[in-house]
């Protein structure tokens, strides 16, 4: 039976699975960032998500919104660099979007993902196609919206988002960067995947898995 809503258990599991996948891909993200940035993206996110795990061990958020807020504050204060404020803003906007809701339905989930993406855009002022995490988030939001519109359950919405984000991340490879550190490289960035787009795809896949979707 497919759940029609996701609750705080899912939200916490998402964060835990994100921490696991970020830890697992730490070196891979570092490698991506080494090629067109400064080689810290995997380290930064791993530091942030490890801190989230510690927080989650100490306090149990009551709603998805509180879980997102906890993630936002922790990432904001532990990650630094470009990714910290951007991911921090994403979770903060998601928290605002879901409010006090205890159960999130597909429409609320889409609203949360959209708010997260819009938050990143507002903070980072990047547009689609500038070789940033936006290039994972925007297709993810579009796919999630389409899935929800066609009546998909939350897990399917997240699966669609994750898959689109993965495709989006791969699609950053031929791009020239216009924002972030990779932008200084000009044409030398071509052929390399954007680390932030890759980590976004990993985190969205974790969301789907937490909702019960197989890898």
């Amino acid at each position, binding site marked *: 039976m497919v759940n029609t809503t996701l609750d705080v258990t899912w939200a916490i599991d998402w964060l835990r699975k994100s921490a696991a996948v970020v830890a697992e891909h730490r070196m891979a993200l570092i490698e991506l960032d080494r090629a067109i940035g*400064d080689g810290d993206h995997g380290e930064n996110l791993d530091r942030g998500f490890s801190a989230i795990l510690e927080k989650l061990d100490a306090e149990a958020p009551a709603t998805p919104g509180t879980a997102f807020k906890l993630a936002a504050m922790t990432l904001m204060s532990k990650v630094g660099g470009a990714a910290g404020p951007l991911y921090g803003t994403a979770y903060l906007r998601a928290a605002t979007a879901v409010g006090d809701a205890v159960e999130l339905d597909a429409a609320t989930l889409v609203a949360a993902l959209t708010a997260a993406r819009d938050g990143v855009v507002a903070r980072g002022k990047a547009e689609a196609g500038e070789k940033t995490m936006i290039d994972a988030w925007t297709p993810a939001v579009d796919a999630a919206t389409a899935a929800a519109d066609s009546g998909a359950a939350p897990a399917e919405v997240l699966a669609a988002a994750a898959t689109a984000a993965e495709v989006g991340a791969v699609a950053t490879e031929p791009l020239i960067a216009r924002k972030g*550190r990779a932008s200084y490289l000009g044409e030398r960035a071509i052929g390399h995947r954007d680390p932030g787009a890759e980590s976004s795809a990993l985190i969205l896949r974790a969301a789907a898995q937490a909702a019960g979707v197989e890898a």
Partner: protein
Amino acid sequence: MKKLINDPRTVVDEAVAGFGQAHAAHVKVNADPLFVTRKDAPREGKVGLVSGGGSGHEPLHAGYVGYGMLDAAVPGAMFTSPTPDAIIPATIAANAGAGVVHIVKNYTGDVLNFETAAEMAEAEGVSVRTVLVNDDVAVEDSLYTAGRRGVAGTVLIEKIAGAAAERGDDLDAVAAIGNRVNNNVRSMGVALSACTVPHAGVPSFELADDEIEIGIGIHGEPGRHRIPMESADGITARLLGPVLNDLAPIAGDKVLLFVNGMGGTPASELYIVYRAAAKLLEDAGLVVERSLVGNYITALEMQGCSISVLLLDDEMTELWDAPVNTPALRWGM
């Protein structure tokens, strides 16, 4: 990777702790969140100067905390900008009621984190102005990028704005002189080797035995382009060319010439570059009025250097000469 460290995760904390002990006469270290203030901060009536950024550029920024320069510095993780939860208390600690100037190198991470911190400090009643440093001419076509990077010019801005704050200039005046220095300084760097960030454990890029990277930044990020190794005189000309092109000085202008080591280059080589650069400036009819040569803003153990030229006016020269008493820059007291 061979480094004098205990654990990649504790490098910054241990280094700043050691720094605080070694320079206890100058600074106080707040361990968590991590920031460094002048021992006597905040200084009654004085505008506070706060800077910060990723670690790995030592002595920047903590080395410039002290009389006539910074009131507080916020070291982030290696090559990673610090977070608002550290910048905010540092800003508050530096505020003596006259407001605080943030000196921020133009990188997305630094800009976003300082921006958030400034907003939140303002919410707590601290007036904040931001001087954005973007002196690196290596970034071509900065319209289509995140803008120019802030590199070695930062040191000059911190010194000169710091002297302005020390003489009692108000918040807007300190920010204005900081911006004036930024508008009049250009820099460009070269790497002969990459550096290794402790958490990565591998060099930030690969260079062949006879290759150098022109237009390098200070984070081990790749530069403008790669060329075969050449002479110090040749490299100096390659760095100084774009700097002068962009700065467009006219004959008779007075300049400060700053040859900065990236961390792993012997002083003798920096002086060879200085000599070549001074000659080129003189050939261009410029007057080298002030000089700075050494490892002042580094990229860990990277081999290479940057050359900065600052167009001086009388006020900047006076503020440059004003007494400064920090762990890494000191004169007049």
